């Protein structure tokens, strides 16, 4: 609910400069952390030139004993995402970190092979040549046929943004641990199964051998053994030994250390029990007994095989796939978790941080946040709350069936160990160009945004070039704090990078979604670019040429990347007014600074090299063209927008769909969330699984769509204000229309203005065709009603006119609205038809932040003791009422009907607060006896 623009208003530059901000400073926990590298003038939105993939993805690799490191799969499983990025090469990188000797074999002092239940290791790796940074989660799976019974795997979250990896380390670690634990649980199960089979095989083999030996003994009674017999006896002995070993292994795998499950959910105990049952079954099949018959009775499905004395060469056999290793069910569950992770961390770091702050703050507002928060988010927060407690495995996982029987034990790395591994790790990067030493950068501490994350931020020693071909920067592992800093200065990039670019690369990376491609093609006109922008890039053509001759994959790459247009504008403003860089994350930059004629970049560091005086990727962007209307708009922000503390430009940090929205808004407006099959879905196949995650971006898309349609409604209907007032004040709005799709669309759009009764109920009914009843008004605050042309509709219309005092009626077919008068000032700010906001998600955020303000007013009003209770016994009710009225008017600045909105919200707050303790309280239908008016277009 607290959107970024809302908060950033406090960091506006000119306010600091011209007049000192007089209001009390914002409490620390409410402020967005300043962009750590702002002082260097880097632009957080700039595109990284080094990265060859378009956005973050997850890679699963294996160190195969046959072929060495190899990539297995990526999430999303779409070649467009990783582009020309060399997965094989990167697999080699991440698998070559010998993180832990997960030795299985005969440890000294032990007779049998010993399984090590090794902790997963969590490592941050960087490969600057590839422009890739990765959180790497190593894990070991057991495979009976593998060397030493182990198969090393790793899951890597690969991003171009190093800081994203670093700052989200804790979250990444938690999430990947879940995935890893799921894999490992499945693996243990599968491994135990394998062992059982193997034991049966061995048992059978032993029986066969035994019989053969006996036969030979009988046949050969000369008193000495033939060599054949000795061989048989040896074989038998080795089989016996093998049996014991395997039994031991089985015991080990079944006695998976309980300490691991400590802190995990209780169900893991159940899981153990489930695992124990086959254990008992297996122990009964004691090899000493003649087990054959038993076995065939118990397990008719498996026929033991004779095991040859000489095992096959390891290169001959085909290794099990990951899916075979982990039991299909667990494997799919893991994939679901991984794609959940991919969604979770999709987007820019700044966006992630902001939304984390958002969530943290919302958690604090437990009294009011039910009113307008999305229920999805609420449930998300419920999960968050229980993070420390037993995890809720099913909340974010679609596979609920298997969850009862196979809970995923969650290994949470303790904060302490995390700290020890990450803090004060130096990243040394040798400079390619060699000569320049840059002063060490003291990075501002970022820990304020998350109490959980006591991350001592790294002291970064940024040392210029990162174009070293084979550098691996191991930032830390869980257990070791040793630093590897190896670099090989070999220029491999055709375009020399300025350190500044490097830095920006390290800091900022934005997900590029394919969606914007089409926009680029629809707005190809470079001619429309304002001259100001052109002037700022004098070397554009040269740069362009140098890029034209660049890497072979360039065409595909460039096509798939549509760098944010707004970012460019932003970039300009950043560069031109370096003093602004003090303010955080660039969101707060009012684009009015663009009005200034851009000067040459002020960064002296790069001045000496004319070629790289400005980040090259911008020229590429320009070449692609960008939606001009946005840029122009940025240059001329409207006043009333800025006065609201909302920048005119609109960033969508999670997806760079900016231009798509603009160009396709008319098309999108009436497409439903479910029937969202426009070009977006077709161009990005990985979006499809996202719908499986309720908390994923699907809800975001939903918000965006709702915002877009709401925006359209506001622009289209001059009487939007009274309609929205009706919703806010709890008067049911009936949207009447013939076309179900249109009605549903509008209902969805308007539902963003509907206060909820509680966390579980959203009082919105999208489509009704039967006559309305008084219960409906008590239950629903926004109803889509079917207008039927037949006489059957008489009842519907009759009930509508009968209950007209409880409803406002928006007739979509006749374009009329019948509702009470509204003369307040709140809704015009909330829903200004001249708003410069163009994009749905931005408008949604705008609405959310306005509503948050409203909630805080309602909160104040509700919980001010003196307003509601008489000061003394003799005080009359009238006095109390007048005190309330004056508080609403003077202290909260509410006029006319706005008072009713706050009063309604206050009632909801009271009800909700009381409801929390004792059971269910019925929602009451509140209404006023006020005349309605008919509005027409």
């Amino acid at each position: 609910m607290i959107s970024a623009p809302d908060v950033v208003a406090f960091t506006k530059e000119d306010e600091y400069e011209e007049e000192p901000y007089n209001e009390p400073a914002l409490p620390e926990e409410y402020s967005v952390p300043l962009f750590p590298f702002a002082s260097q003038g880097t632009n957080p939105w700039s595109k990284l030139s080094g990265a060859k993939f378009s956005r973050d993805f997850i890679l699963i690799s294996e160190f195969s004993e046959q072929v060495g490191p190899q990539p297995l799969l990526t999430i999303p499983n779409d070649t467009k995402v990783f582009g020309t990025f060399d997965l094989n090469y990167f697999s080699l990188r991440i698998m070559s970190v010998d993180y832990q000797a997960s030795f299985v074999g005969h440890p000294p002092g032990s007779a049998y092979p010993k399984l090590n239940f090794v902790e997963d290791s969590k490592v941050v790796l960087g490969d600057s040549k590839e422009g890739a940074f990765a959180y790497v989660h190593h894990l070991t799976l057991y495979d009976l046929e593998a060397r030493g019974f182990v198969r090393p795997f790793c899951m890597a979250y690969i991003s171009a943004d190093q800081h994203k990896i670093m700052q989200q380390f804790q979250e990444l670690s938690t999430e990947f641990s879940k995935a890893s634990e799921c894999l490992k649980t499945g693996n243990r199960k599968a491994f135990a199964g394998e062992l059982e089979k193997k034991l049966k095989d061995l048992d059978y083999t032993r029986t066969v051998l035994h019989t053969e030996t006996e036969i030979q003994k009988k046949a050969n009674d000369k008193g000495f053994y033939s060599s054949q017999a000795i061989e048989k006896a040896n074989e038998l002995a080795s089989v016996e030994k093998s049996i014991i070993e395997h039994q031991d292994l089985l015991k080990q795998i079944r006695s998976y250390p309980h300490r691991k499950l400590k802190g995990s959910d209780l169900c893991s105990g159940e899981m153990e029990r489930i695992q124990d049952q086959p254990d008992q079954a297996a122990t009964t099949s004691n090899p000493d007994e003649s087990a054959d018959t038993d076995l065939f009775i118990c397990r008719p499905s498996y026929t033991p095989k004779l095991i040859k004395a000489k095992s096959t060469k390891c290169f001959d056999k085909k290794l099990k796939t990951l899916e075979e290793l982990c039991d299909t069910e667990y494997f799919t569950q893991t994939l679901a978790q991984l794609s959940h992770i991919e969604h979770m961390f999709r987007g820019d770091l700044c966006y992630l941080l902001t939304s984390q702050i958002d969530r943290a703050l919302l958690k604090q507002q437990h009294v009011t946040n039910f009113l307008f928060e999305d229920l999805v988010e609420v449930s998300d927060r419920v999960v968050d709350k229980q993070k420390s407690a037993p995890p809720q495995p099913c909340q974010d996982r679609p596979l609920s069936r298997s969850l009862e029987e196979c809970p995923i034990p969650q290994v949470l790395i303790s904060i302490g160990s995390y700290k020890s591994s990450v803090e004060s790790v130096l990243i040394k990067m040798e400079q390619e160009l060699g000569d320049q030493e840059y002063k060490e950068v003291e990075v501002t501490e970022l820990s304020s945004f998350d109490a959980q994350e006591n991350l001592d931020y790294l002291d970064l020693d940024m040392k210029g070039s990162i174009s070293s071909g084979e550098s691996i920067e191991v930032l830390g592992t869980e257990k070791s704090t040793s630093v590897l800093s190896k670099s090989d200065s070999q220029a491999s990039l055709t375009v020399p990078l300025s350190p500044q670019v490097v830095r920006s690369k390290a800091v900022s990376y934005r997900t590029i979604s394919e969606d914007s491609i089409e926009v680029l093609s629809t707005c190809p006109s470079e001619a429309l670019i304002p001259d100001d922008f052109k002037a700022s890039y004098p070397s554009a053509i040269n740069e362009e040429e140098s890029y034209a001759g660049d890497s072979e994959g360039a065409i595909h790459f460039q096509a798939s990347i549509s760098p944010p247009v707004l970012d460019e504008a932003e970039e300009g403003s950043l560069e031109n007014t370096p003093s602004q860089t003090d303010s955080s994350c660039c969101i707060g930059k009012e684009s009015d600074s663009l009005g200034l004629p851009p000067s040459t970049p002020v960064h002296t560091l790069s001045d000496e090299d004319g070629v790289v005086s400005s980040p090259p990727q911008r020229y590429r962007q320009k070449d692609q063209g960008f939606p001009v209307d946005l840029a122009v708009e940025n240059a001329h922000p409207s006043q009333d927008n800025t006065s609201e503390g909302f920048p005119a430009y609109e960033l969508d940090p999670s997806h760079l769909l900016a231009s798509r929205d603009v160009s396709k808004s008319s098309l999108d407006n009436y497409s439903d969330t479910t029937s969202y099959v426009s070009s977006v879905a077709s161009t990005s196949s990985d979006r499809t699984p996202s719908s499986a995650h309720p908390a994923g971006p699907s809800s975001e898309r939903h918000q965006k769509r709702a915002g877009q349609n709401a925006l359209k409604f506001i622009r289209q209907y001059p009487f939007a204000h009274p309609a929205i007032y009706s919703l806010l004040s709890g008067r049911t709005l009936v949207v009447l229309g013939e076309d179900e799709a249109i009605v549903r669309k509008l209902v969805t759009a308007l539902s963003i203005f509907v206060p909820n009764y509680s966390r579980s109920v959203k009082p919105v009914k999208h489509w009704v065709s039967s006559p309305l009843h008084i219960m409906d008004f008590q239950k629903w605050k926004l109803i889509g009603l079917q207008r039927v042309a037949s006489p059957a509709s008489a009842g519907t219309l009759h009930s509508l006119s009968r209950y007209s005092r409880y409803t406002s009626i928006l007739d979509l077919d006749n374009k009329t609205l019948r509702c009470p008068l509204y003369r307040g000032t709140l809704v015009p700010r909330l829903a200004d038809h001249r708003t410069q906001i163009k994009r749905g998600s931005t408008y949604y955020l705008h609405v959310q932040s306005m509503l948050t303000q409203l909630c805080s007013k309602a909160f104040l009003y509700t919980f001010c003791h003196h307003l509601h209770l008489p000061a003394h016994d003799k005080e009359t009710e009238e006095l109390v009422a007048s005190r309330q009225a004056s508080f609403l008017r003077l202290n909260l600045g509410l006029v006319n009907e706005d008072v009713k909105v706050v009063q309604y919200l206050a009632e909801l707050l009271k009800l909700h607060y009381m409801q929390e303790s004792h059971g269910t309280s019925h929602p009451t239908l509140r209404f006023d006896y006020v005349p309605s008016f008919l509005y027409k277009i």
Partner: protein
Amino acid sequence: RGRAAGLPLGTADPGRAGPLRAAPGPGALGPLRKSPLQTIGEEQTQNPYTELLVLRAHRDIVRFLVQLDDCRFASAGDDGIVVVWNAQTGEKLLELSGHTQKITAIITFPPLEACEEKNQLILTASADKTVIVWDCDTGRQVRKVSCFHSTVKCLTILQRLDVWLSGGSDLCVWNRRLDLLCKTSHLSDTGVSALIEIPKNCVVAAVGKELIIFKLVAPTEGSLEWNILEVKRLLDHQDNILSLVNVNDLSFVSGSHVGELIVWDVSDWTVQACERNFWTQLDTQQEIKLCQKPNDISIHHFTWDEENVFAAVGRGLYVYNLQMKRVIACQKTAHDSSVLHIARLPNRQLISCSEDGSVRIWELREKQQLAAEPLPTGFFNMWGFGRVNKQASQPVKKQQENTTPCSLELIGDLIGHSSSVEMFLHFEDHGLVTCSADHLIILWKNGERESGLRSLKLFQKLEENGDLYLTV
């Protein structure tokens, strides 16, 4: 625009819809039928009920509401169950099920002061020919009587004697423990339709067109037997008696299907006053009489105060002054169809509910200009004809101004039920409860007051939680 709320709603329940709004005959002869329904706009400043709560538990028509104490009431209806509710929160407290058919009468039996048993009892009579006594604190079925030969249609309690009477085809007297003390002979097949207590251990039973006075003989030293004796039959009504109430210590009133209102002396059972046809125009307008359905003039319900009897006559409301012995105010078409229940509030307000599904709040106001000028009771007969009111918007009020010293002003209406509103109950502290044929009960509340109460509760809870910090 503003009239939407008051649109005729007779179609809400076709089965029960009273008089249809037939198109006015040629020439619009009937002023009574012409007189438009008084409506009130959406702006109802005097209407305190700005909050409602729909209570749903019944599966059939809810016909009866009875108040148990300050904050509880019970509802009963055709589904045979009794539900006890909290009038403040709307919480369903108990559901009493035991009857197999619809409930025909319900009454509360307040606990005796002397008696140890504190619990309040509810008596319900049902079409399954049983009467059940419930403990309305525990929901327990205390006793059940099933020896009736016919459906018990009315129940009354003689608190003084600690007995209760059931009226079906005969009249039975029971004590608290449900022992049958005595009974009358078979009275009629249709049964007793109303029963009230009058002084001197007498009760009046309305049986068809007759009012029968019974005297109850309590056991004395001489005889231990209870007895009930028929004392007198009053035959003044020409049609079935629908309503019968005690209005004060001196008189009781009965009303019949054809609109006769008779005020009786409570001690010697003589007619004090009689209004037979003042709400009809029998002698002047035969045609009207013909097209007049008896429903339009039948007296469904009475309420009273010290000086007036308020009668629900057909669709209208009439105020009959006992001293002046005439109608002092009337509202001929107070509702769109028959008024089923009326009640008087302390502040000269009257609430009526009707088959049209609405509840209306009226205020009795005195007209300043016409204070005196007594009017003959038959005055109604004189004005109607010849003053055909072509303009429907010309309200009845104008005519009333000449006729009655007071007027009933509509100050608010409550629209919520989708079908006939059978009954309502007014709580001083918690608002109004209405029950209806649409199976619902609606709790109407004063929104401002509720808001204040919620605030109080909120701060109480904050205090309990220790979250309340008061700066001194």
